Each structure stands twice: as C-alpha cells, then as structure tokens.
C-alpha cells in the first residue's frame, strides 16, 4: 500500500508539473462559474399550465405503471390561475373534444367513447390494452435479428370499455389520475385535487393546488445566464435545461475535450518512466515490475479523476444550488468518465511499453478513440437498419459489426449510459419513459464487463512485455 500511494503521489506530481493541467483546471473552474451564474425562475402558472397540460392526453395505463403509453383526446383548460408561495391554485376543466354522445358500446368501435375524460381515467386505471404494431412496419426483407436493439416501438391501445365500465370510475380515481399526470409530466409531486360538484358531465371541474413548483422538472422556467445580465430564455422546462447543460455541455463536449487532453498529457508518463537512465532507478527498487506498471497506470487515471471530479462535482453543485434539484446521479459521470479514460489509457500503456514513444501512444490512443466512436455510430446505424432497412446490406456486414461491437470496449455504450443517467435524473418520468421507447439502452454489466476484459488484456500484455525486457 505504501508503495502504491507513493507511486500515485509521484504521478500526481508529474501531472501538476506542466501548465496544461492548470489550464484544464482553469477551464473547469470557468465552466463551473458560468453554470453557477445561471438562475432558474419558475414561470407563472397561467403561462406554465397550458404547456404542462398539453401532455395530459398521453396516458400510461395501469395507474401510471405501464411502460408504454396510450392516448385519449381530452381538452384540459385552466381558469382562475393564481400563484401561491412556490405553488399555484386554479380550476381545471376537462371536457371531451367531441360533442357529447352517450357513452354506448358502439363507441368502442372507434375506441373512444364520447365521455372522453371518464374514458381517459378508465384507461389510466386499467391494465394496458393490446400492443400496437410497430408504426414503421417491418418492410419485406427487414431483419429481426434483434440483439439488444428494439425493433418495434411499443404503444398500447386503450382498453375497450362499455358505458357501465365508465361508470365505475370514481371521483377518487379522477383525483388520483390528475395527480399522477402532474407527477408524470410536470414532476410536481405535491398536488391536491377536489372535484367541483354541480358540473354537468361529460364536463368535469376540479380545484387544483400545486406546491413546490420551483425545481419541478417539467415546470417551465425562465433561465437567465451570466447573473441575469442577458435577457432570460423563457418557458423551458427545468429538466430539459438541466439535461442540456449536464449531458450536452458537460458529458458531451466537456468530456470529449477532457478525454483527448488527458490522453495527450498522460501519454508521457510511461515513456518517461521507461527512458534510459530513469527506468533502472525504479525497477531496481524492491517492487515487482508488473506491480510498478499497474500502479503507474492507476496513477494516470487519478489525473482525469481529479479533473472530472472538479468540473462535474462543481457543475453539479452549482446546478443543485441554483435549481433546487439535488439528485446526485450526475456525479456518477465522474467514475464513468474515468473508466472510459481507463480504456484509452490501457491502449496508451501498451503502445508506450512496446515503443517507449509518447507520440506513438498519443496517436494510437486517439485513433482508437475515434475508431470506437465510429464503430458505435455504425453499430447504431445498422441496428436501426434492421428495423427500417434503409440500406440493403449483406448478412456478413451485420456479423462483422456486431462481433466487433461485442468484443471491443463499449466506449459508445458508456456514453449512452451516462446520458441515460442524466436523463433519468433531470427529465420528468413521462419524458424518461417516452425517451426509453425511442432509444435502446445497453446494459451496464455488458458495457463494463467487456471493457474491463479489454483493459485486463491490454495491461497483461504490457506487464508481460515490461517484465521480460532488459533495460
């Protein structure tokens, strides 16, 4: 352990010796400051509610537990909207879009009984109906080799209902439905709903009270940058703004830049160690060579770990303070980014041990990064092509792409998975589920397992070479 920490400390010294690390730290701090300058103010209820309720026609059956949505057209209107401290109070009116006909069994034919709202609540309360077909359809010759990619999108039909079925919907069901819709599409959890008596069905009125709207993921917010010195951007749901900052700016652009710069800086560590005159000093110490190399490898990882801890931790903290969203999932991007770097650094290490050249290590690792990125894109394309069959491709192309993807580290998958972490921790449950329908997420175990295997092989190869070589 003492040796391990000694080498970590040495790597740290080596890292902070150059100016590049300070440049990167300065950029990180700048990013954190810019993020901290953003303020989020919830939009007033009369502006926000119509936007939020646009989504209410979408219903997740089975009391919101179904993964696949269905839709029932109902018109929702608000009246007498008033802001309360960190909340809102208003009258919600739900009405069927069509002229009310009696909800008869023949209405089942087109699937939408005339009392649209009761039917919506019924569809929400009951288990999901039949699955809809893939809306893209499988074209003739389309492939269904479905490895881990979804080949048909899931929607469910609302269940059939008779007029008598609709009468089983109680006021409590209606209140629960409205609460669930606010939770699902606005991320507002604290909702009170009371049905107003004396309104002729199929129109329904409710007194609704919302609390804790500032910080609610789906609630539109006004976003101002640079401590309010520029005019705010209005009406953006808070979660989407956070997701953009965390996923696109930090986890996307920021991570790519950090990875590339880190590859360049750390690529010098091992060739420096192997330089004539330096290497004897270390390998004459009472430490095994493989141990030395692996410690040194881990030392290289601490570099990006510290850097991403500063930038991601800082951005997270700034956003949490500013927006009131304290979900810590985004912090998991720190270890995942470090792990992604571990894949590249393993390649850098092998090249460094075999060639002792930092330039070769940089070129090969960056080339490998690009290659994995392209492979990920190609894989996505062919997965899509299985469904849509846009491009005719012989079977072997699929085999090659799938095999390469299965054997090589899942650089792209890790990226998708961190995006999912961010999505899950910023967007509303409704957006998350809809997003899940469109995107297929790889598994953590697969992505990490194969990558760990790859790293192990690279390190084993490096250790083998390092241990046997005369210096």
């Amino acid at each position, binding site marked *: 352990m003492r040796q391990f920490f000694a080498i970590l400390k040495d790597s740290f010294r080596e890292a902070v010796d150059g100016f590049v690390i300070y440049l990167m730290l300065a950029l990180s701090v700048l990013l954190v400051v810019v993020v901290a300058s953003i303020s989020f103010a919830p939009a007033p209820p009369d502006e926000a509610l119509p936007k939020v309720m646009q989504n209410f026609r979408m219903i997740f059956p089975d009391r919101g537990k179904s993964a696949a949505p269905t839709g029932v057209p109902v018109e929702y209107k608000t009246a007498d909207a008033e802001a309360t401290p960190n909340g809102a109070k208003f009258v919600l009116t739900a009405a069927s879009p069509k002229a009310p006909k009696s909800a008869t069994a023949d209405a089942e034919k087109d699937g939408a009984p005339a009392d649209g709202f009761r039917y919506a609540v019924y569809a929400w309360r009951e288990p999901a109906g039949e699955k809809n077909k893939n809306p893209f359809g499988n074209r003739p010759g389309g492939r269904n080799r479905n490895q881990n990619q979804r080949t048909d999108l899931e929607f469910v039909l609302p269940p059939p209902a008779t007029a008598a079925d609709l009468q089983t919907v109680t006021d409590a069901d209606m209140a629960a439905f409205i609460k669930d819709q606010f939770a699902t599409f606005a991320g507002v959890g604290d909702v009170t709903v009371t049905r107003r008596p004396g309104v002729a069905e199929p129109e329904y009125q409710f007194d609704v009270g919302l609390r804790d709207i500032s910080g609610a993921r789906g609630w539109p917010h006004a976003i101002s940058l640079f401590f309010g010195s520029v005019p705010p951007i209005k009406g953006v749901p808070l979660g989407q703004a956070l997701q953009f900052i965390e996923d696109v700016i930090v986890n996307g652009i920021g991570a790519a830049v950090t990875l590339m710069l880190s590859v360049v800086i750390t690529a010098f560590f091992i060739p420096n160690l192997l330089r004539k005159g330096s*290497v004897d000093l270390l390998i004459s110490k009472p430490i095994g060579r493989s141990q030395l190399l692996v410690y040194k490898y881990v030392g290289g990882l601490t570099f990006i770990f510290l850097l991403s801890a500063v930038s991601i931790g800082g951005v997270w903290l700034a956003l949490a303070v500013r927006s009131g969203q304290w979900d810590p999932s985004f912090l998991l991007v720190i270890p995942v980014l470090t792990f992604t770097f571990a894949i590249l650094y393993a390649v850098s290490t092998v090249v460094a041990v075999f060639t002792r050249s930092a330039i070769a290590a940089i070129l090969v690792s960056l080339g490998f990064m690009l290659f994995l990125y392209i492979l990920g894109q190609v894989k996505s394309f062919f997965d899509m092509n299985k469904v849509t069959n846009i491009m005719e491709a012989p079977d072997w192309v699929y085999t090659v792409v799938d095999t390469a993807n299965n054997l090589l580290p899942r650089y792209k998958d890790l990226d998708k998975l961190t995006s999912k972490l961010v999505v899950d921790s910023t967007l509303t449950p409704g957006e998350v589920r809809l997003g899940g329908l469109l995107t297929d997420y790889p598994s953590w175990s697969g992505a990490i397992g194969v990558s760990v295997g790859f790293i192990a092989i690279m390190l084993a190869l490096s250790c083998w070479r390092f241990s046997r070589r005369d210096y």
Partner: protein
Amino acid sequence: MSVIETRELRKTYGRIEALKGVSIRVEKGQIYGLLGQNGAGKTTLIKVLLGIVSKTDGEAGLLGHAAGDPAARRKVGYLPEDHQFPGYHTGYSLMDFYGALYGVPAADRRRKIPETLELVGIAGRMNSKIRTYSKGMKQRLGIAQALLHDPDLVILDEPTDGVDPLGRREIRELMQRLKDRGHTIFLNSHLLGEVELICDRVAILQQGKLVREGTIADLTRQKGRHEMAVAPGQQFPADAVMKLGYVVTPLPDRPDVFEVSMPDGQSIDPVVRLLLDKGLGLRHLVEKKQSLEEAFLATVEGAEPGVDKRPKGGRRVRQVGGRD
C-alpha cells in the same frame, strides 16, 4: 553467506556476449571494486544482480536471494550510471518517493532525508527542483538516495562521475564510514587512484571475462621482483647472483640499487644468504610493487585503449556504453 555471489554468470545481448562466465564473491563489510575498460561488462554485471536485465545463464545471488527477486533489492541501495531523475521532483520529494518504495515509514523519512542530504552536502538545495541541479549535485543526490533506507549493500556505478575533487574525497570518506558501520559496498570506477585508496578487493573484467581478482596488495605485487642494495662502499655481487639463475639489472636512476628477478618458483632467500656469506651488509630489500593503474594496464594490455572491443566472428562489435 556472501553478500554477492555469482557463478559462471553469462549475459548475451543478442549477439554481444557482455558477460562470459563470471564468478565473483563479495563478503560482508568489504569495499569491492570492479574495474574494466569501457564495455567490459561491469554495468551489465550490476544490472543482472539487480534484475534490471535477465541473466542468460549461470547463477547470481544477492543477500541470499536469487538476483532479480524484488525481495533481494529491499536492503540494497543502487546508484546507476547515467541516471536521469525526474525533473519534476525536488531533491527532498524524490528521496521521499524512493524511501516510500523501499518501505521506509513516513516519520523516518522526514527525519532521515535532511540528514542524508546533509551527508552528501546538498541539504541546502533540497527543496529546489532537480532540473535546476548541476551534474555533480545530481550525482550526490544519487548517492544519497542509495543510502536513505540504510541498506546492507550499496552498489555504486561510477559514484564520483562528475563530482569535483573535494567532493570525491568526501565521497571516499563517506564510503569508508559506511564500511566501518558494517555496510558492504560494491563499486564500479575508472578512477583507479581512488579505488586503490579505498577498496579491499578488486576484480578486473575484460571482454566479459574475469581476468584478475584479489586484494589490492595481490594485484599490485610484482611476483618475483625485488630491489636490493648493499651497504655503502660495498659492491653488489651481480655476477654471483646471476650464476644462481637470477636476472640482475641496475636501476637506471639509482646505479647502486639492483633489480633482481628470479625464475619461477624461486624465492629471494638464496640471494640474501649469498650476501651474508660474502659478509656484505644488506641495506635495502623491497618487493617491487606497481600502482593499481600499472597493474590494470598490464592486465588489459593488448586491448585497444578506451574501448573493450570484442571481435566476434570477424564482426565489428557495437559501441561503448550500450545501446538498448
């Protein structure tokens, strides 16, 4: 148990035979010097002992472990030739790093590092980056890092390289003190005058072979050559001595003193007896010695000066110092 022991040790780098069956033994408490021309294989021998290169054949042991075993290196301090310390360290932090690798506890390191650097005379600069050190300062630092963990054996590959004369004397005295404290020192050097001053035993390598080994006295003694002179006013009986089979020549600069070399296996005693029998007074009898340098040059005579060339199948051999 010997501190260092090799038996028929061989090392070949590709087609270059750097060591061709070297057997040496270094006992505890000795200062042992390894001499040889450039490219003779001295550094290679050390590197095999420390596991920096692997041996091709034969045996090598260090402090009771097989050479190359990390445990063997725990009690060894090593100063490599042409070392390059990482420039991002200060003298202090480098010592701290290496000390931790040797397993020296942090508290001991804090105490010992300034002490050791003081010993080699660079304590005043211990908080400057190594890249600002002069060559000799780096060399002194190199010696310090080899001593920090109080090793049983210190291996120094050209320790006084780049050090000024005063510093060289300090280093010599340091080695003497270490020896007095029971440490063993194994040393490569081209400065024969120094080696002669401090080493107990020396070995001479030539083209990867051990050509001489022994105490300094052994090496510098010139077997069978004596200087003799009789009392003033008396005549040295050169002819009578020659009749006994000895070769007698007057020293060019001192005509009254004669060099007497005897045939193999003979001792000087018959000459002494002859002088006494003749009633002559023996005033001067010295076994002739060489300086270590003369002995060394005599040993490696014939080799081209400077580089230990090793013809192999008519092929010109690689250069000095070793490319890797």
